[in-house]
């Protein structure tokens, strides 16, 4: 199993216990009095059987607080996500932090910022690079690219899922649109893996038919579920962080109620993908302070009050169009705030340009960022050995610690030394061609592409995936979608 990083100190809490209760109570109030729209007769019937007041005309269920509390209590504090290579499985929850790959619709050129439709080969290389990177523990759906040249849009999720399993042994999350969950479930089962099912709400307060169907399908397959309700503060959620916290809470709690009614005790990780709005353009404003605060309060409520594993997506993207200072400055503070407040999963590697683009060279740089954050959350130990009072006394006011056994044996574990960042002296930097971190990451990219060989599927598994994709193509063709 992949180890991840352990949060070894008290998480940062930014609201009081009383405020946590206030947000929770307001969320229950919304679900009881306003209700939640489930665009599925099957889901509504099940919820009615569990005590919800259902209006089939508006497809809304008013959820009693007791049912919400029951659903929270049934959700385990951690769950195993089995990869095709057991060594790459992960246990999400508890005090462990993992990192998830980010994604983008298209491929962005590092030097020009120009985006283009990625080929299947570029997609496969992107997966392979992330398979190589130690700090990428799991993939979301349609990763690394949303769009693939020559692949019909409706097939992009199944094909992306197939290629992730072909070029990586790490676990994946599935998708929910247009019955893609049927094929992604089959692909995972064909290689002996699980995928995290995907059930994403549509703010405000609704869950479309596709994710409802996906919930039944993925749970029937015995898979754990990733839930989310992407929204924009000031648009589909209130502009205030407190108000957005209540709306978001209510949405995710409503989804958890449905999942636990379908399969009590199922594993769930709840994602926070609440964004801020750029009030000049209406676009998403990535890397903002409001997102960081929302996520930190969210981690406090969900991880430490509800005891449910949490995922943060705020640091996955930047509004920057190229890898530059803005990109780092928008992604890193959010990722750090997420980690310090107890996130179990942070989406980070490779996403550029507001969800619209991706480049594996950035994923290589993000590997160093993830490892630095991981090192921070692990904290440090305070023992007689680590204090080393005898060494301090021995060096006194005139010696050095460099030649001590303590330094020699402990420096590697006390700090993390990034591999891509430029740490050379000025003269070395001049003499070696003034390489930037991006230059070094490009070189690393070339090295990975030319030397790294991911563990292949067996010929039988490969053939079975081909057969599943053919079946999917035929299915969508019959529906007139291809």
């Amino acid at each position: 199993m992949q180890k991840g990083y352990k949060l070894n100190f008290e998480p940062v809490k930014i609201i009081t216990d009383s405020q946590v209760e206030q947000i929770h109570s307001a969320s229950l109030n919304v679900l009881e009095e306003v209700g939640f729209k489930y665009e599925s007769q099957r889901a509504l019937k099940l919820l009615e059987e569990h005590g919800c007041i259902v209006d089939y005309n508006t497809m809304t269920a008013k959820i009693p607080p007791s049912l919400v509390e029951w659903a929270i209590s049934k959700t385990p504090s951690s769950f195993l996500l089995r990869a095709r290579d057991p060594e790459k499985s992960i246990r999400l929850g508890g005090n462990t932090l993992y990192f998830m790959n980010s994604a983008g619709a298209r491929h962005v050129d590092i030097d020009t910022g120009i985006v283009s439709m990625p080929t299947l080969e570029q997609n496969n290389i992107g997966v392979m690079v992330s398979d190589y990177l130690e700090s990428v523990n799991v993939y979301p759906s349609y990763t690394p690219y949303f769009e693939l040249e020559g692949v019909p849009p409706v097939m992009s999720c199944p094909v992306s899922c197939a290629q992730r399993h072909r070029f990586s042994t790490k676990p994946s999350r599935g998708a929910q649109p247009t019955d893609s969950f049927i094929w992604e479930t089959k692909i995972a089962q064909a290689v002996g893996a699980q995928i995290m099912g995907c059930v994403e709400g549509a703010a405000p307060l609704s869950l479309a038919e596709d994710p409802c169907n996906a919930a039944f399908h993925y749970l029937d397959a015995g898979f754990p579920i990733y839930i989310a309700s992407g929204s924009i503060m000031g648009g589909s959620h209130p502009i205030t962080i407190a108000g957005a916290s209540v709306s978001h809470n209510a949405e995710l709690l409503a989804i958890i109620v449905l999942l636990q009614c379908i399969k009590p005790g199922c594993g769930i990780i709840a994602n926070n993908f609440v964004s801020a709005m750029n009030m000049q353009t209406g676009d998403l404003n990535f890397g903002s302070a409001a997102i960081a605060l929302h996520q930190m309060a969210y981690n406090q409520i969900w991880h430490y009050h509800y005891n449910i594993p949490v995922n943060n997506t705020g640091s996955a993207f930047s509004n920057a169009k190229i890898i530059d200072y803005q990109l780092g400055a928008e992604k890193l503070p959010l990722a750090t705030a997420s980690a310090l407040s107890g996130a179990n999963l942070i989406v980070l590697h490779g996403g550029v340009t507001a969800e619209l683009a991706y480049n594996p060279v950035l994923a290589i740089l993000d590997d160093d960022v993830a490892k630095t954050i991981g090192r921070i959350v692990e904290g440090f130990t305070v023992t007689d050995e680590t204090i080393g009072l005898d060494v301090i006394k021995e060096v006194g006011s005139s010696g050095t610690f460099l030649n001590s056994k303590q330094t020699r044996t402990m420096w590697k574990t006390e700090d993390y030394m990034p591999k891509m960042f430029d740490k050379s002296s000025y003269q070395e930097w001049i003499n070696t061609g003034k390489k930037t971190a991006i230059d070094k990451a490009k070189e690393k990219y070339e090295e990975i592409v030319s030397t790294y060989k991911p563990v292949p599927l067996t010929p039988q598994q490969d053939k079975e995936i081909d057969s599943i994709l053919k079946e999917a193509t035929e299915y969508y063709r019959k529906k007139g979608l291809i």
Partner: protein
Amino acid sequence: MADFLQQLKDIVLNFDIDSAEKTAKDAIESGTDPLQAANALTEAIRDVGDRFGKGDLFLPDLVCASEVLKKAFPVINEAIEKQGGSESSVGKVVIGTVFGDIHSIGKGMVATLLYAAGFKVIDLGINVKGEDFLKAVKDENADILAMSALLTTTAMEQKKVIEGLKDAGIRDRVKVIVGGSPINQEFADSIGADGYGSTAPEGVKICRRFMGIE
């Protein structure tokens, strides 16, 4: 009457949604010419639109000003109709986000700016099926059809609607403008749209051009 005309401008410029309907009613009941009242509101919303374009005002200001108009205009339009007149506009636009897509903000901005620019806007909302676009274009005798798509997977819906206009024999009656994150000029050309706006203000400029207003 001048005082009421200024009050009508003020409710828009102060984003005073709560007073909008009452101010409009008071203006009409006190004998204000409804056509002049409509002009006052239109002038004010254009001012808001211009200030938004310059970056002096922000999206919530624009949307709230638009809400003021939605409350005030029905009262004034009713008075215009009683006088035997009709609403004047520079053109009629049917707008919506295509089927499968629930993103509303960009579409809403364009609708508001079009409204501010004097267009009559029929906003069909989000997740609009192709047949509903076609029906609205026919029923409303629209001058322009504006379609938004934020997802690559839904962008092709725009093409389906344009094909539908052709099949229904009404393609020549309406100009089509498309927009959204995955859309660009090349894509717009490839699906047979008449125009593409990369931003909401640019979309409005193109719509004005469609109507022969530079």
